[in-house]
């Protein structure tokens, strides 16, 4: 079985700061990470590698430094890594991004295509479904769990607003994974030691199968009307415990903040 996972390099939003004047993200000095949903998707693919000896390819579209997330994926255990990069891709919105990725995917043979549900920076959750449309493949979004029968059928638990659906789908197909679905494994030490000596394939426009007019700024119908930051409110923390334990937690939090 062949699996391709689309991963996106995103700024670590837990450490991100907003420029108070312009309202835009300050990206300088913010560490880049693998988008959390995509990391769960990687774990799904690697668990299928463990059980079914699947071959796992990762692909990312981005500037040359996006190579770092591919090295990290190697250290986690993937078999092949492709960096999709070309000046022709610059300025892409979600549609042009998905066209470029679909162009590359036409050159790859796969039974399962895994994307994250949503990127924590762009946040549209559009790229996965758009790729499925371009390639005319069945898609299951909001994946919470996947079972494989070892032949060609996947049984998938899909989260919906107030419950879940159980679906069966045959490969090749596209799934978009939720970050909570699979707990990503740690990189292994030997994987890290070898990661930078492995081959990262660089693919540009010439290597993929796509119409040039669908790429980059020209292929991007989206126009940004206005960007603004919303007021910050801390997320708070939810504990589902009995009242005795809850009192203990509240007391320790109050002490921690020196309120009592």
């Amino acid at each position: 079985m062949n699996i391709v996972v689309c991963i996106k390099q995103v700024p670590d939003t837990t450490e991100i700061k907003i420029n108070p004047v312009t309202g835009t993200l300050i990206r300088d000095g913010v560490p880049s990470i693998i988008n959390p949903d995509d990391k769960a998707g990687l774990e799904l693919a690697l668990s299928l590698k463990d059980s079914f000896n699947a071959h796992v390819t990762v692909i990312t579209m981005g500037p040359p430094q996006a190579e770092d997330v591919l090295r990290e994926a190697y250290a986690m255990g993937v078999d092949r890594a492709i960096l999709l990069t070309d000046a022709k891709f610059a300025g892409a919105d979600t549609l042009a991004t998905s066209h470029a990725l679909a162009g590359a995917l036409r050159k790859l043979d796969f039974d399962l295509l895994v994307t994250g549900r949503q990127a924590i920076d762009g946040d549209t959750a559009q790229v996965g479904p758009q790729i499925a449309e371009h390639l005319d493949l069945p898609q299951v979004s909001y994946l919470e769990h996947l079972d494989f029968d070892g032949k060609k059928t996947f049984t998938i638990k899909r989260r919906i607003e107030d419950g879940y659906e159980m679906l069966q789908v045959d490969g090749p197909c596209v799934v978009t994974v939720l970050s909570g679905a699979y707990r990503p494994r740690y990189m292994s030490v030997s994987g890290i030691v070898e990661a930078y000596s492995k081959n990262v394939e660089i693919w540009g426009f010439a290597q993929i199968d796509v119409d040039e007019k669908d790429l980059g700024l020209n292929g991007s119908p989206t126009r940004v009307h206005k960007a603004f930051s919303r007021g910050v409110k801390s997320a708070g923390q939810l504990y589902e415990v009995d009242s005795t334990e809850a009192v203990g937690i509240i007391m320790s939090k109050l002490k921690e903040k020196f309120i009592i």
Partner: protein
Amino acid sequence: MDFSLTKTENLFLQMIKDFAENEVKPLAAEVDEQERFPVETVKKMAPLGIMGIPIPVKYGGAGGTNILYSMAVEELSAVCATTGVIVSAHTSLCAVPILEYGTEEQKQKYLPKLASGEWLGAFGLTEPNAGTDASAQQTVAIESGDNYILTGSKIFITNSGYADVYIVLAMTDKSQGTRGITAFIVEKNFPGFSVGKKEKKLGIRGSATCELIMENCVVPKENMLGKLSKGFSLAMKTLDGGRIGIAAQALGIAQGAMDETVKYVKERKQFNKPISAFQNTQFQMADLETRIVAARLLVRQAAFKKDKGQAYSVDAAMAKLYASETAMEVTNKAIQFHGGYGYTREYPIERMFRDAKITEIYEGTSEVQRMVIAGALLR
């Protein structure tokens, strides 16, 4: 000269910090309080290759550098010094001497199991009457057919009881003093081998420190490590490498205490300001931070030289001496900055202070490190 980390080192730090924070830190207080060896943590480290970082891939290790290894011990110790020493004793004092002095058969037999963490390793040199003066060994090994028969006891042996393999030093020729000492690889199931009393300790309370008892313990001749009568120098060189691990452990403890203190002094308010606003706090913390960074440079320099195959014995002694005294100083002052709260077990500082002390004692006391440094200086 280039002080920047490589991409590989940065990727490694990303992994090990993440692992330490999520898997090791949550257990640290409990492991200390209950004096419990964290078996589950070893089981988690094993498949990631953390138990065999500097062991070559062909012997089942990760094929990493001593720099990566020192980073691992530092980061683990920053949240739990017990976990740091488990890795350090296992790697530096058991797997590495087998790698450096073992026969091909010994390497094939022991390294894959040790490097994968399937087996845990330990090192038995110290005896009740042979501490700093390690040459005063009373454990004897007598040749008998295809075996050596070992009789004697060791004390304060880290990882004992949980370890599967022990490097044990014994006298093969009492008349020759240090030149009559030989090293052996002893498996826990060898007849006549047992683990005795477990020590109750001030710090690193989750690590197992016990007595080893050898009563006519039968060790096959092929388990002699290194050459006959060369055990003393093997042990001393092994400790040179081990000191990089302990220096990294001390450095981690200091860094862990500093991280806690930085958070605390910004939050804690007295006289209507955070205590970080007092110049006394700022100046003392600046001095401590400078010591920590200096200690890290010494640790990395020693590891770098070992990686390059250069002489590093004095560098390792300096790293251990300076890092361990830094750990004592930082944890001591960190409690002071935390006031009464730092003295209680609500905060991890009290544990870090207790954990720091051992780094001035084992694998050569601070006095021994000074002897090594002065010995080279005044040669």
